[in-house]
């Protein structure tokens, strides 16, 4: 198995995480899910990776980017892999900045 490009740290049934998953799927990005516990104190691995215990958090091995907060992540993914990355940002503007 080849390592997926993106690692997503997530919680089961976390709507912010689902939002990131939708965006990953929209751009056809390969990812693996690492599930952590609801308790913040149980999320040391996320803290080590991203500097914070919040999820979702992603690690993108292609770009070396690590990021938390779903809004930031979605914006990053759209800017890097969406139409906006190749057409100068017109598509993202047309969507109202999603």
């Amino acid at each position, binding site marked *: *198995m080849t390592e997926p490009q993106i690692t997503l*740290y997530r919680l089961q049934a976390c709507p912010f995480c689902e939002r990131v998953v939708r965006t990953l799927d929209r751009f056809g990005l390969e990812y693996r899910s*690492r*599930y952590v516990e609801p308790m913040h104190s149980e999320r*040391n691995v996320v803290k080590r990776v991203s500097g914070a215990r919040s999820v979702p958090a992603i690690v993108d091995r292609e770009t070396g980017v690590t990021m938390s907060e779903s809004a930031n992540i979605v914006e990053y993914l759209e800017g890097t892999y969406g139409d906006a990355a190749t057409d100068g940002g017109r598509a993202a503007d047309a969507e109202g900045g999603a």
Partner: protein
Amino acid sequence: MGAAQPTRKEVPEMVDFDVVDLPEADHVEEGDTAPDFTRPLVNAEYWEDSALDDAVDEPTLLLFHPMDGAFQATYLYNAVDEHGWADDLQVLGLSISSPYAHKRLLAERGEGVRIFSDPGAGVVEEYGLDHDIDGMTGITETRPAVFLLDGDRTVDYAWVASEHPEFPDAEEIDDAIDRLVD
């Protein structure tokens, strides 16, 4: 589905407990290639889907055990820790318990071990280890079983419980590990 019903052993009078013979089972044996599967694999910090084939590229002790919380599981991980098996080689467990239960187990014992979660018992059935527990309708359990695998998933040593309850022989596992890893 549905394992054959175990038969109650003839117990001599004066013995006040029952050990149950489990029926013959067509389970994975020495010399077989351990069947590949993908299930959530839980470590002390998180879980993610993992194929056995991806996890096994070195000698590995694969332990099937009853649900987390059953004393058979507790004793097994006590043995893992006491004998330092996870220092000698990769140790992977598997039970029908949820990833959350595995995380609680690993917080207390099984240092360095990772555990597959197989709540639907599909892997348990594929390995020929399924059996029913009287009074827990709808739950398919695994027999306790130990498989020592080389890096190609070939089974170098196998032990499968033939009675209920029955525990693996830690000294025998020690010897098998020494033979494979040295």
